[in-house]
């Protein structure tokens, strides 16, 4: 089984023959090449071009995060899975307004329903199912975004009722996050984005053509689109778990006047638990076989491909438990 490698300390990626080594102050650790799915680099990472050659050959993406844990970018190896027919269809579904808005709404619907499931688990009343039907009347993307924003606002308000008091927050603030929950959401979301990107890389989808987000928003905006569906499942539930079980406390954050960030220890805890979640399996209803949460993201890409090829209409993944 291939796995994700999370490099937390500063160091260097080197290649000798067909093995990649991670060298840091503690020594030299081999990483068997056919065991790597993706690499997440949180420390400052130096690498030799030979190492990159090998990673490219094996089709392994490397995601880079800066000192603050923000996503910086990815080494996205030359595409090895290309389908001209699919790219044409992907672009057509963007250019045709009806087709684009259909998919955009599906992403919002999936995200909203998963948020609802998260709140339901904690028996919290919410407005999501009242706001969601307004999607039907939306004719342009900004209206869709607007509905999504209002759902999210309601959702974040309710989050405080799940969190212990010292973790409460007023609103979602990004760059820089100003309190602990915002720090956790930002950190987690950038992980999901990278995870989704790795999954897209392993399909024939082109990551730059997106539907809810504008293709120009981010280099790989399709990863933003698909992330929406998985953020409540993978990040928000994890945050509640870590905070309510007191696995994370105020000591795991670095605070300054206008920002708040996870420190090294906090990051390690978060990443470890995040990776556990990706590996956790559920029995898939349609496939009648066990699939991991990570695999669910891949299946979502497959569903999108089928929609684009016209073989089955896309329905977003919604937790059924």
């Amino acid at each position, binding site marked *: 089984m291939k796995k994700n490698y999370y490099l937390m300390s500063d160091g260097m990626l080197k290649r000798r023959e067909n093995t990649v080594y991670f060298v840091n102050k503690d020594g030299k650790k081999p990483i068997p090449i056919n065991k790597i799915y993706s690499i997440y680099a949180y420390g400052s990472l130096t690498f030799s071009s030979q190492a990159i050659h090998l990673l490219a050959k094996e089709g392994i993406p490397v995601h880079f995060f800066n000192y603050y844990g923000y996503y910086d970018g990815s080494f996205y190896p030359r595409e090895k899975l290309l*389908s001209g*027919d699919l790219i044409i269809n992907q672009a057509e579904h963007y250019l045709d307004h009806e087709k684009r808005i259909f998919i955009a709404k599906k992403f919002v619907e999936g995200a909203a329903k998963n948020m609802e499931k998260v709140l339901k688990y904690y028996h919290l009343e919410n407005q999501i199912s009242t706001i969601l039907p307004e999607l039907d009347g939306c004719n342009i993307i900004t209206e869709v975004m607007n509905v999504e924003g209002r759902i999210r606002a309601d959702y974040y308000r309710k989050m405080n009722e799940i969190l212990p008091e010292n973790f409460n927050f007023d609103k979602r603030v990004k760059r820089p996050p100003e309190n602990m929950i915002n720090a956790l959401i930002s950190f987690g979301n950038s992980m999901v984005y990278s995870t989704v990107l790795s999954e897209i890389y*392993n399909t*024939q989808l082109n990551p730059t053509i997106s539907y809810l987000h504008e293709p120009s928003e981010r280099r790989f905006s399709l990863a933003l689109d698909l992330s929406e569906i998985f953020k409540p499942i993978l990040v928000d539930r994890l945050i509640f778990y870590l905070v309510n079980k007191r696995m994370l406390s105020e000591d795991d954050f670095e605070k300054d006047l206008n920002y708040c960030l996870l420190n090294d220890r906090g990051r390690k805890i978060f990443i470890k638990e995040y990776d556990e979640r990706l590996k956790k399996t559920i029995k898939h209803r349609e*496939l009648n076989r066990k699939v991991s949460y990570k*695999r669910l993201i891949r*299946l979502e890409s*497959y569903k999108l*491909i*089928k929609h684009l090829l016209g073989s089955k209409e896309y329905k977003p993944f919604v937790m059924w438990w």
Partner: protein
Amino acid sequence: MLSDSEKNLRIIGTQIHYYFICKTKLWLFSHHIQMEQESDLVSLGKLLHEKSYKEEKEYTIDNLISIDFIKKQGCLELHEVKKSRKMKKSHEYQLLYYMYYLKQKKGIENIKGVINYPKIRKKITIDLDESKEKELMDVIADIGNILDMDTPKPQRMKICRKCAYFEFCWV
């Protein structure tokens, strides 16, 4: 411009093979929605290929057909290496297609085909006769038709479980 008959011959062995297994797989593979890179069974096949008949050389012709190895014993002997006889018919037609291709495009007569099953130490010999040739022409035409249409709806079969496209088809 390619003539119809030439266009028809832009088909690779795998496509003939898939035609007899599953039309959905054939369509997806031909439109470059490929999944084989993740299939353990495909890797196993490659390994088997590498480990048996090590001294023999693989031939790829016109970037279309790839013959596991060739022997010259009075006539030209094309050899295919396969894991099991489960998909006997598709293996046979894949090899028949190679023979047909070499005859049509390279003018080589007097070709024999041998399928090797190293795991069960068996070999079978096949010949390209007129009726087989006719059948192949129909298959090739049919493949062309399938590829021109929309993705065929998958049909649930016993072999789906082991297919690299399983999740894609049934999710």
